[in-house]
């Protein structure tokens, strides 16, 4: 059965476990938002030495934003702003957004919030999620802060699902702690494809992204590449396919935690 047909069915339509597991095996792929709607609460783990975490978060957010079907009452062009929340520590480690380097769709629409503490950043994220005039919210929080516990992430999930504003929270240099995020990614940079005219130059950005925990998708690992206005995903290895087979059968594929 093709993935699209399965994932378009509502969850409650399935009664038997086999069908349920078949539905859960629906793999994530770019452009899925056209069928399922946008992924609402996402976490991307990345290192502060590289911009891969933010890059993947932006790529996923833009991919959802482009594929979500527009309701007939809406304006033809979505001109809503984007809220980008950083703690001061995150800005010091990874820098602030540079307008000229943002994707063309986002230039001139970013509203930047610089929070002193993690508590302030969480407040700003929640306020952003409650605002109907925002396309999505991006947050950058370094480390495993005490304020960002399971309760805080649950608050964010509820706010996001209530008002339908997607959240992409980038966790810099953090361990995989408890969270209620619906999709959790781990992102690192990957060598880019050589550009057409100068093979010696860095090409379009590419990342190795691992979806290690998701509510309605099987985990997997992809090499994401953003070229022009589309997001391409190639399967990273065959190992993950095996993991998916087990996962769909109800077995969790366990792997050694990368960090403490």
């Amino acid at each position, binding site marked *: 059965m093709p993935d699209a047909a399965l994932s378009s069915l509502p969850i409650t339509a399935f009664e038997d476990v086999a069908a349920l597991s078949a539905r859960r095996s629906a793999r994530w792929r770019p452009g899925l938002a056209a069928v399922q709607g946008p992924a609402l609460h996402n976490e991307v783990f990345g290192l502060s*030495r*590289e*911009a*891969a975490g*933010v*890059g993947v978060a*932006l*790529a996923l957010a833009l991919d959802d934003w482009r594929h979500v079907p527009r309701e007939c009452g809406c304006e033809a062009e979505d001109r809503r*702003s984007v*809220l980008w929340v950083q703690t001061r520590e995150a*800005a*010091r480690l*990874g*820098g*602030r*957004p*540079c*307008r*000229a*380097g*943002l994707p063309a769709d986002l230039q*001139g629409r*970013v*509203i*930047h*919030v*610089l*929070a*002193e503490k993690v508590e*302030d950043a969480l*407040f*700003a994220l929640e*306020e*952003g999620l*409650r*605002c*109907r*005039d*925002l396309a999505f919210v991006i947050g950058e929080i370094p480390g495993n802060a005490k304020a960002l516990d399971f309760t805080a992430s649950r608050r964010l999930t509820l706010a996001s699902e209530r*008002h339908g*504003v997607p959240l992409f929270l980038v966790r810099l240099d953090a361990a995989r702690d408890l969270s209620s995020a619906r999709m959790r990614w781990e992102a*690192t*940079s*990957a*060598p*880019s494809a*050589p550009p057409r005219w*100068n093979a*010696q*130059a*860095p090409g379009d*950005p*590419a990342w*190795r992204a691992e979806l290690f925990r998701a509510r309605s998708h099987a985990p997997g690992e992809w090499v994401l590449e*953003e070229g022009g206005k589309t997001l391409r995903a190639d399967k990273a290895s065959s190992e993950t396919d095996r993991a998916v087979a087990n996962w769909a059968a109800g077995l969790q594929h366990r792997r050694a935690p990368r960090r403490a």
Partner: protein
Amino acid sequence: MSALLPDAARPRRILSIWMPAMAMDRWRLGGSGERRALDDKPLVLIADTAHGPRIEAANRSGMAAGACRGMMLADARTLCPDIATAPSDPAGDLAFLEKLAIWAQRWGPWSAMDAPDSLLVDVTAVPHLFGGEGRLLADVAETFARRELTLRCAIAPTAGAAWALSHYGPPGAILAAQDDAEARLADLPVAALRLDDDVLTVLRRLGLKRLGELATIGRDAIQRRFRNRKSPAANPLIRLDQILGRVPEPLLPVVPQHMPLVQRRLMEPIRHRQLLDQVVGDLAGDMARELEARGEGARRLELGMWRVDGEVVVRRLEMAAATREAAHICRLFAARLDDVDAGFGIEMLRLRASWAEPLALEQGDIEAAAETHGTSLAACIDRLTVRLGREAVTRPVPFASHIPERAQRWQPPLEPEPTSQGELAFHRRPLKLLDNPERIAVLYATPDGYPRRFRWRGEVHEVARVEGPERIAPEWWRERGGTRLRDYYRIEDDRGRRYWIYRLGIVGDGRGGAPDWYLQGLCA
């Protein structure tokens, strides 16, 4: 055609009121009985200047004694040794004139100040309410006499003509629309044109003393003489045209404005936060009604809290967009009231909208709608600004500069974006810029080879691919002469991490030793 030009069918009527002794009258009325007693003797109002006290105004007996406006007090003392003095108050005079201008709207819907001591009132289509223009002038004279203010007034079709007649014409002059204005005004002195003193001197030296004489030497001659004077007060021809109504003369009307203000006096001083929130909520509701009645929304609010022991605590709030939602105002103030020290209790609260903007009426229950549909962007930004501060919520905007860290500025999020030149498509910029470029140790082929390997934050990166250099020269119009150029490289290391680094200077540029390398940006 006449329907299109109501002005032509029914010309404007302007009433000019001149109070020749306004400062003196105001001084006399401002105090108790002894001021009136002093007024019979020679008296002058003085202002301090760099050369000693100078006379600003003199009363009738002072003028008879020889004092006049603009004279130094020492000179007047030699003429009349027992002259009395009092300080003049120009700011108070201006405020008095402003109040008088609003008061003078009893004779017409629209009035303007003509500092320092005149008023202009538009009485078009009004005189019949007073029984004609003559009776209107009589009413003005009677009302001012009751207030013990000396005045001269006149009515004419233009502001310039009314001013000229009130200052230099016969008392109570009326210039009707069908009169030949040029002939009526021909006998007035050229000073009636409201010209600067140096222009009056020029005219006097030319032998032109009356308005009628300006026409005798021909318009071309005057035009040639004053061809460089563009300001009306320096060019007699423009003033003459204004008097005769050939050129429009814009006037700035006085419009009274009231700041929306609500307050609560409390029977029992409050000391607890819960009660304070209740009162602030009531005030916000009052303010919302007040603003709604005026069709406005508040941009800036000031909450003053008067404490029993004589202290006043003030909290200011500025909104990103005009609002009059009581719940929103309450919520914003709630965040600012945490550090209020109530002391022995707060006995009065006052909420003032010191900056209000027009805001159209719209449907109600916005707060209920926000609960289901989410808040608007302006409300969201207000809440963020109140908790995090003004500087924390910003939007990046481009700025005309080649230096990357200077090419971007941060401004409040809802302000309009300044115009700017588009970025060139082949200049690739990184996704994020570090606040301060970080120095890195780079292995490269001197003087200007590609970087091979570098160390940043304690880790070594092997460079796999390079693009560059993009050379950015220092901006000589902003920076000192010794600033070095920058060669930017986009690089990717062996693990695919992409950075934006630059070499500051080049060997042999005579601006320092071996060039340093910096890492400035992180590419996606």
